[in-house]
């Protein structure tokens, strides 16, 4: 291979200048290899070998560690592989009282989520270490390890579980206590006894802000980073300039559906689809339109967060 083609080996679907011949060029494998290696802080390179063929070199920084090291410590070094995210989202409900677990499970399963349960903090941490989850609902007062301690340990523990959204479930709904939960690593709070809508809304709020990394990576494999940045800016622009009503509102919602969908923002896409639906209906239900529009604006405001910036995902 000519030297200039060697650099392009790691570009997805590059034809290596073979557009006019039957040679196929490269696929995704080397591009994925490079992304994995770079995610681990290393480099990958290709060179023509003197005796023919090619030599691929991978350099990885390997910290010197004391043996024996626990598996959990290793999990910090190796980046989490993005597993294909299958619907529905997986939730872990942690509560020592069986009736509370049952009620929360019933509400959340009815809303389409996959729900698993644990009866105390230690059991929850064990489940979170074994299996991937999308969100945790955590009781505060439990015998054994309580919710505060379990959340503290989760936040201090290995990736990717340490960055999961954790919602506190408690009857202590005083403002200063809620502030304590936030300081303790919780993302949100729902009051007990549960009511269906606030519980589902709290979950939706955090999952809606979540980014579907698989979808984003699929887009990254077909579009260059500049194009993804433009798409992201166009989505934000559409959200910032959402018309008040009428066909202009429906049309804006329509474009937001596909833009947010491609960018891996399923929560925003769902709200925009709902808004398009209600805003095109006749006779118009003004209250429903205003509600759907407000909810979309709220969700759109979270796009200011750095976690949604295109380059942060690629990194």
């Amino acid at each position, binding site marked *: 291979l000519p030297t200039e083609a060697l650099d392009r080996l790691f570009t997805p679907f590059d034809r290596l200048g073979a557009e006019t011949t039957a040679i196929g060029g490269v696929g995704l494998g080397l591009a994925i290899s490079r992304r994995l290696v770079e995610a681990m802080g290393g480099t990958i390179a290709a060179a023509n070998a003197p005796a023919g063929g090619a030599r691929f070199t991978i350099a990885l920084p390997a910290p010197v560690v004391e043996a024996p090291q626990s598996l959990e410590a290793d999990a910090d070094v190796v980046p989490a592989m993005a597993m294909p995210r299958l619907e529905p989202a997986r939730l872990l409900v942690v509560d020592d009282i069986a009736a509370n677990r049952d009620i929360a499970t019933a509400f959340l399963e009815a809303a389409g989520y996959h729900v698993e349960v644990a009866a105390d903090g230690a059991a929850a941490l064990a489940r979170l270490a074994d299996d991937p989850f999308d969100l945790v609902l955590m009781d505060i007062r439990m015998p054994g390890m309580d919710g505060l301690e379990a959340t503290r340990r989760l936040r201090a523990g290995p990736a990717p579980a340490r960055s999961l959204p954790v919602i506190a479930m408690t009857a202590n709904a005083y403002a200063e206590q809620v502030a304590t939960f936030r300081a303790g690593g919780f993302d949100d709070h729902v009051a007990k006894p549960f009511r269906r809508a606030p519980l589902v809304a709290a979950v939706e709020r955090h999952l*809606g802000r979540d980014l579907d990394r698989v979808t984003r990576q*699929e887009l990254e494999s077909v579009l260059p980073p500049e194009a993804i940045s*433009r798409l992201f800016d166009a989505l934000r622009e559409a959200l910032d300039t959402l018309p008040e009503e009428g066909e202009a509102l429906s049309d804006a919602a329509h*474009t937001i559906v*596909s833009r947010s*969908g491609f960018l891996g923002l399923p929560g925003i896409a769902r709200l925009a689809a709902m808004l*398009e639906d209600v805003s095109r209906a006749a006779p118009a239900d003004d209250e429903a339109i205003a509600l*759907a529009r407000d909810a979309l604006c709220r969700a759109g405001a979270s796009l200011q967060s750095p976690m949604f910036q295109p380059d942060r995902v690629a990194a």
Partner: protein
Amino acid sequence: MTLPIDPAHAAALVADDDEFFRMAAVAILRSRLGFAATIEATSLTEALCHAGSAAPPIGLALVDLRMPGVADMNSLSVVRATLPAARVVVVSASRRRADVLGALGIGAHGYVWKAAGAGELEKSLRAVLAGEVSIPAFVAEFEADPPPLRDAARTASAGTLTDRQRDVLRHIVQGASNK
């Protein structure tokens, strides 16, 4: 018997008024599915102008259910009639079962939800090119549409929100503003 379409000897038409949807779709059609050519249109009229004259001929047409020139699903049947040899896929932001079935009703080969993302779009198009009909799995979800028994009521209230949806939206608005 439906023969597979060979993208290497066919053009793909993307008719959608959102330039960003066209950009993503064209990238998938060219780099992932290997189409020899892609044609972009921003309205139904423009799409039909390209229909007969494309070289190589159009093997696959992606048409948006919401773009200038489209009144309803029936407007899209003209695409199917104008391009009898092509596979036609309806792209839409709607998750209503009635819209998916409506697309099949005008003889479309597929229906793609616009928010499904690049991977899903590619998967559906591959199936359609192979001769299959591809519709989204949500068509079988219980809550895709209100139950048929309430059809009469639904016509009056189509496009409004259920009480459950209202509740959840209210809490999204309130919850976020409490922060």
